[in-house]
């Protein structure tokens, strides 16, 4: 199918938007107080990546629920694609997070509660794929993976809200030191760039997701031909 103009236009818009966001983040946004030089700018990438990771896991949840109801292989493919992208964004968020920690506190990791939450998310969806590897039958693999993803998703709010609070009470000395510096004042310009970055990365996620689903459709169509 020749590409419709709006699709080409959308890709250009996304490309321009992302370069704009990167430029704004690196150059335009005013420096925040209490940071070494411009290292805080990585936050404009770190935070959206974490949000988009959670967004991807939400898409996985919906696709898993839909698979359990209709048992359509395409929903299983959608759930897998969303989980894979969620894992990608979670890994990126962890990398940029540790770079920020390295610049800011001189060590790649300091068990900041939010960082631990992202890593636990990473472990959950790595386990999701370990489970998918361990099941041979296609339909059972989809059902078990969906059941695990939905069950894991329910624990996520605890992970993101409860754990940091309870966690802080565990080793107060370490966490307070970190918390002091991270809470920088969000002035309007920075908030705008952050939102723009979030929109940009969500757009990129959506594009990646639709591409992966198109691949899944092709694979399913080809298999249907073989079977017929």
């Amino acid at each position: 199918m020749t590409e419709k103009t709006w699709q080409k236009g959308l890709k250009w818009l996304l490309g321009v938007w992302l370069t704009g966001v990167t430029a704004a983040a690196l150059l335009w946004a005013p420096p925040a107080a209490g940071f070494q030089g411009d290292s805080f700018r990585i936050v404009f990438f770190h935070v959206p990546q974490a949000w988009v990771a959670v967004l991807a896991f939400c898409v996985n949840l919906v696709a898993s629920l839909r698979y359990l109801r209709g048992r359509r292989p395409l929903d299983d493919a959608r759930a897998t694609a969303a989980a894979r992208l969620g894992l990608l964004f979670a890994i990126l968020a962890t990398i940029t997070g540790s770079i920020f920690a390295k610049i800011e506190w001189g060590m790649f990791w300091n068990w900041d509660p939010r960082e631990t939450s992202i890593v636990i998310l990473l472990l959950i969806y790595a386990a999701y794929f370990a489970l998918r590897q361990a099941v041979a039958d296609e339909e059972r693999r989809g059902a078990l993976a969906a059941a695990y993803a939905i069950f894991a998703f329910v624990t996520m709010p605890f992970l993101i809200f409860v754990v940091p609070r309870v966690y802080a009470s565990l080793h107060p000395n370490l966490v307070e030191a970190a918390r002091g510096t991270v809470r920088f004042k969000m002035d309007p310009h920075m908030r705008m760039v952050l939102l723009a970055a979030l929109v940009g990365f969500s757009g990129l996620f959506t594009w990646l997701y639709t591409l992966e689903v198109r691949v899944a459709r092709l694979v399913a169509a080809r298999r249907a031909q073989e079977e017929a």
Partner: protein
Amino acid sequence: MQRSSLLAESLAILGKEVASELRRRVALNAIGLFAVTTLVAVAYQIGPYGLAEQDRPFLLSALLWIILFFAATAGLARVFVKEEDAHTAKALRLAARPLAVLYGKLLFNLVLLLALEVIIVPLYCALMGFAVRSVAGLILVMAAGGAAFAVTSTFVAAIIARASGSNALFAILALPLLLPLLVAVIAGTRAAAGSMELAAVLPALRAIVSLGGVTMVTAVFLFPVVWRD
């Protein structure tokens, strides 16, 4: 065909699990042996005087739950894996309702876990010199923590039994789900160790009970999907 009540079915399955476990004692041996050997090894290394004073409450609480966690992974998955390995799952699937299977096996894992705690915790406190000020608080945290622990472990056990059934897969799938609970029970244990009044454990207890409740409700909805194709 009239049906037996869900409670009767669940108790029948619990009875079967207890009877076969007492006769073969596979899970009991795995859990008991693992916990005691780990405890003795750790106690020997660290002992009552090995830790700096101000770190003791947190580290001893954390260490206790880590020992309990790994002892559990050695034995809790068996309750479903043996059904698939021995090919008895088919007869059970035909005869019992999914929820009866879930409740029967969950109750069994809960009994196993609480028995483990009753044996290990006093031994741990003695060997490690872990002075606990509010024993009532500790018992509450142990009971609620054990229950919430059993819910997630039993559900994950049902999943891996229908996958490869390996203990490694059980640990990989269960650990990330149990981490939030682990943080809450460690905080609760530390609070119980730290102060006399019961109120100290309440924040952690709320987290444990809400986490346990939410995962239980989800397990009840999802279990039929896992148990039957």
